[in-house]
């Protein structure tokens, strides 16, 4: 009898554990391990975590985000996640098991919330400004994510571009994802996404996509993508930023320079002057959108206080 009771007790404890893990969805979602990108050109000093960012012209995703909490800039690319502060310069933000990223998004209304993505990584989320991360891939049809965008007023809505598959959307902060019915732009090599509240959408706004053949835009009902103007010299666009207070003002960065549109991307002016090199990515302070930031190919950081009219380099102390 004692043996029977022992067996029952062992069985009960084992089953309890199995059932608990199964019913609760298992341990916290692990971030998939992805080896470093073979073509990473950013030199990373792992001892000091300081980074000398130097990236040649590339079609890989490079994303820039402003963290209004401390005024730092975040850059996601094939060197992972880097943070720039005036007192430190570029510093690597360590994300366990992840070495290559494609996008970084900061929730402007809750700036401790970051979303990042990468090829083979899917989407990861941090609720503590990048100290800890959790994979949020439930329902995501592909982990090969090349771009992310956060909605302008539905902050739990995030869009992800899946290479070869199109757009997925979460409406609950990443707890669940669904692929949206969308054919994608003519060039599906999307390596940047940004949301805009530009008027005229039949839903809640627009998405801009940056691609090697230019910028494209679609309403977020996904009724078709159209070219966002034309930049004839070299149409490749790496990065797009939208002024959230004046959404007709759009910035686009690419090998041909930094451009500004004041009609939602229908027309673009000449390349803006004042930057001492080719821009790699552009972003702005969403609360003070006249403050625009650009990172150049040599890794230098530039700031404009007046909507990209004048620029000054930022020097790390």
């Amino acid at each position: 009898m004692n043996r029977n009771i022992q067996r029952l007790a062992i069985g009960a404890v084992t089953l309890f554990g199995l059932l608990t893990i199964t019913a609760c969805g298992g341990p916290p979602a692990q971030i998939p391990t992805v080896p470093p990108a073979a073509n990473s050109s950013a030199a990373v000093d792992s001892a000091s975590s300081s980074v000398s960012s130097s990236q040649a012209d590339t079609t890989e995703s490079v994303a820039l985000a402003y963290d209004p909490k401390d005024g730092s800039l975040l850059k996601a690319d094939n060197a992972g996640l880097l943070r720039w502060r005036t007192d430190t310069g570029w510093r690597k933000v360590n994300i366990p098991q992840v070495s290559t990223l494609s996008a970084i998004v900061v929730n402007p209304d809750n700036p401790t919330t970051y979303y990042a993505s990468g090829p083979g990584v899917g989407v990861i989320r941090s609720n503590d400004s990048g100290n800890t991360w959790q994979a949020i891939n439930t329902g995501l049809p592909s982990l090969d994510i090349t771009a992310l965008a956060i909605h302008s007023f539905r902050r739990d809505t995030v869009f992800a571009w899946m290479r070869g598959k199109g757009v997925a959307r979460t409406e609950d902060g990443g707890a669940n994802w669904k692929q949206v019915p969308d054919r994608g732009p003519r060039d599906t090599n999307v390596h940047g996404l940004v949301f805009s509240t530009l008027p005229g959408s039949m839903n809640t706004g627009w998405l801009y996509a940056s691609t090697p053949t230019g910028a494209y835009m679609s309403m977020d009902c996904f009724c078709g993508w159209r070219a966002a103007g034309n930049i004839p010299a070299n149409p490749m666009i790496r990065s797009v930023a939208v002024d959230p207070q004046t959404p007709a003002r759009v910035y686009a960065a690419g090998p041909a320079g930094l451009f500004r549109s004041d009609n939602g991307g229908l027309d673009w002016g000449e390349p803006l002057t004042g930057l001492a090199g080719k821009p790699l990515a552009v972003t702005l302070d969403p609360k003070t959108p006249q403050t625009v930031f650009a990172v150049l190919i040599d890794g230098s950081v530039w700031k404009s206080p007046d909507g990209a009219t004048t620029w000054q380099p930022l020097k790390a102390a």
Partner: protein
Amino acid sequence: MEIPRRSNNLATLEGCLMRRTRYRWLLVITMALTACGGQNVSPAAPTNSYPTLDPAQITQGRQVYVQRCASCHGPKAEGAPNWATPGPDGLFPAPPHDDTGHTWHHSDRVLYESIRDGMNDPLRPGSPLRMPAWGSTLSDGEIRAIISYFKSLWLAEHRQYQWEETLKDFKPTPTPPS
């Protein structure tokens, strides 16, 4: 050969143990589920299934559609040729309203207002209407009937998608005149 009978005492004890075992398994399962803290363990089933359509309204909608809309959107709502390819101006030809198009991406409000108010280039406010505004020609009931006709062309999953878009629309759907 007589099979030795188990003692009544043993049989009673085993029966008792088996009954207790059943209860223990039940208890274990209950505890395990309780330990999850009430988390959903499986995706919630859709609680808001799309409403059924009125066949008479569909018939009316098809008649109005053929009379007013088919010349641009196709007699079977299949859309203009190459409707998915934007022209040099970035604008798209008249889209289909069947499953192959994107009409089902839109809430009831958007569909209603698009028919009532017409459509121009959304990036060029004030530009000429590319689709006429039918609000002064069609009655409220005729507009709703056209939308019902569209819905009758869609797969169940697209009906459900469109219904969910309607439910989460940030603006209310226009109500019929009393």
